[in-house]
């Protein structure tokens, strides 16, 4: 993927650039808001990673300007601000995702991945499938190898989110935000517990697992053996 990183902190920027390059992405980086705006408007990027606080034009203004000019490139905001109002403000300005510093590189990579491969307009799917596992979104039923699996509403939502991102790693924080709308860090291992309950229902009775744990990063559901 072609990425543009607009970040004024040199150390963070070089750490991120190195990380993305190791994953095989092409990364352009600039430290100034004005310059970043010009680059984002001119270049062909798959994802923009924008710091909220920048010299020159601030991150929020960059995204507002780009959206005003019809540039629809997905944007992920980086920020040190924890206030939820700032998050809401960022998303309202046209941001697609929001990550509060400090974050692990794996968290950022997973989110950039999810944004970059997002289909332009998700078609109205009525069923989600991965290998032998099938989720009917109309009747809200799940089956594997034709065997019906009973899920609680929360488990259903969790599986739906995983299936919509099939083949991609989703982090624990992404699950908390998207499945439970938790904007905070729970003290108990609530995500792990719920994932393991889901796994017990969709994987345990069958011959090979679909839902895998990616150590230190998150979870992925795919049909690879």
């Amino acid at each position: 993927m072609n990425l543009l990183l607009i970040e004024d902190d040199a150390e963070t920027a070089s750490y991120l650039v190195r990380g993305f390059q190791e994953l095989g992405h092409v990364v352009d980086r600039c430290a100034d808001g004005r310059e970043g705006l010009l680059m984002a408007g001119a270049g062909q990027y798959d994802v923009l990673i924008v710091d909220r606080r920048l010299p020159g034009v601030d991150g929020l203004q960059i995204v507002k300007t780009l959206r005003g000019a019809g540039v629809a490139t997905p944007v992920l905001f980086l920020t040190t601000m924890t206030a939820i109002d700032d998050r809401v403000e960022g998303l309202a300005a046209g941001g697609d995702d929001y990550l509060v510093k400090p974050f692990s590189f794996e968290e950022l990579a997973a989110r950039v991945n999810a944004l970059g491969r997002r289909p332009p307009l998700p078609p109205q799917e009525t069923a989600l499938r991965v290998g032998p596992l099938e989720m009917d979104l109309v009747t809200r039923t799940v089956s594997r190898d034709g065997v019906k699996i009973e899920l609680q509403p929360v488990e259903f939502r969790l599986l739906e989110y995983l299936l919509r991102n099939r083949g991609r790693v989703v982090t624990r924080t992404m699950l908390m935000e998207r499945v439970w709308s938790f904007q905070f860090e729970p003290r108990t291992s609530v995500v792990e517990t719920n994932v393991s309950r889901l796994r017990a229902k969709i994987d345990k009775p069958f011959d090979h697992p679909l839902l895998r744990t990616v150590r230190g990063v998150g979870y992925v559901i795919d049909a690879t053996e």
Partner: protein
Amino acid sequence: MQLNRVLRGQPFRIGLRYAALFAVSMVLVGGVTLWRLTGNMEADLRTSVMEESDTLQAVYRQEGWDGLTDEVAIESSLSAGSDDVRGTHYLLLDRRGEKVAGDLSALRPFSGWGSTTLIGNGDGDPDPDDDPDVVSVVLHSTELSQGWLITGISRHGIDDMQETVLSAGLWGAGAGVLLALLGGVLMSRTSLRWVDAVNQTMDEIMGSNLSRRLPNVGAGKDLDELTRNINRMLDRIEELMVGLRQVTNDIAHDMRTPLSRLKQTLEQAVTQAEDGSESRSLLVKSVMETRSILETFDALLRIAEIEAGARRISFADVDLAALAEEIAETYRPVAEDHDQHFQTEIEPGTTLYGDRDLLGQMLVNLIENAIQYSGTGSTMHLTVSRGDNGAAEIAVLDNGPGIPAAERARVVERFYRLEKSRTTPGSGLGLALVKAIAALHHRRLVLADNHPGLIARIL
């Protein structure tokens, strides 16, 4: 503006007091005037009665008993045939007390002053359908050698005067009291308009909008001056709040960036350290410590943000019952992993006007507290219900060790932790956050004894 609010207003009550004072003084002035006027008129009346008597006594002295009898008969005949009882009345009695002449019916003989009442036309109204009036008459009786001469004049003049003064007084007092009340209502409305404007603005300011100022409603010099001063005070508060937020954000920015770099460096070091080495375990410990510093920092910033009240902008009706069901479903497996029972009693359709994310965090904090501190084998209970006044109430109960009564008030303070829980992870900000979220929603957190265990209620 509701009338009963106007009537309970301070200016109206002052108006009411003035009206009462005015009424009392009217009664006093009226009473004294009436008393003096009546006294004067009574004296005049008696003088006239005496003059009448003197005139007739002179006749008696010159013309004897018969002459007096004739004179009384002549004087009396002037009013004969009329039912008008006003004016002068006469009566002449002989030694036996029998009536000799006069227009009054026979009276028991007496000497000096007396009185009687006559029934007839006392107000000059010639209409025969007019109700008869009762008129009292002032009498004076003089004993003569052959009988008694009684002269009298009706008191209708005094009665009329009293009636006039009384009705004038009553009308005047009524109008005065009415005007005073009306003035009270008007003043009350003016000041209530000001109070309402102040209250509404204050609500908005406390809600979120610190830049709001009191409008100048023109409620008089004093209130306008007060309005100006309150506005100046609000300017100052806004300056301080903006400054505080600036400082907080600056600290967040300046501290969190180096801290997150430190954490990144430590995490990199962990991956490069030899598996199982002592330096690796020290590095892992450092990562954990750094993470917990950052978490504490975030929790503090979050409490500060919530207490600033800015979140009220995003308030909406939240389906609290559905939210609680979802969170309960999410946490039931966590409780089961801790060998705990988790029961719920959620009244469907219970709603609360507030911030969904924060209400969720509040429920999670209460439930996680119960899971963390009530111990294995305990039973937890989450209830969501509508209270007596229809407002949503939340309660989380457990039958664990609970919190000693003496410490219950302190555990909601920032960083306060029970001695025995110091070794378990946690920032000591969980209940402080719950309290802040509850306060943002105009609710309070109440901790009580569950005999055994803890009850945490949001009322």
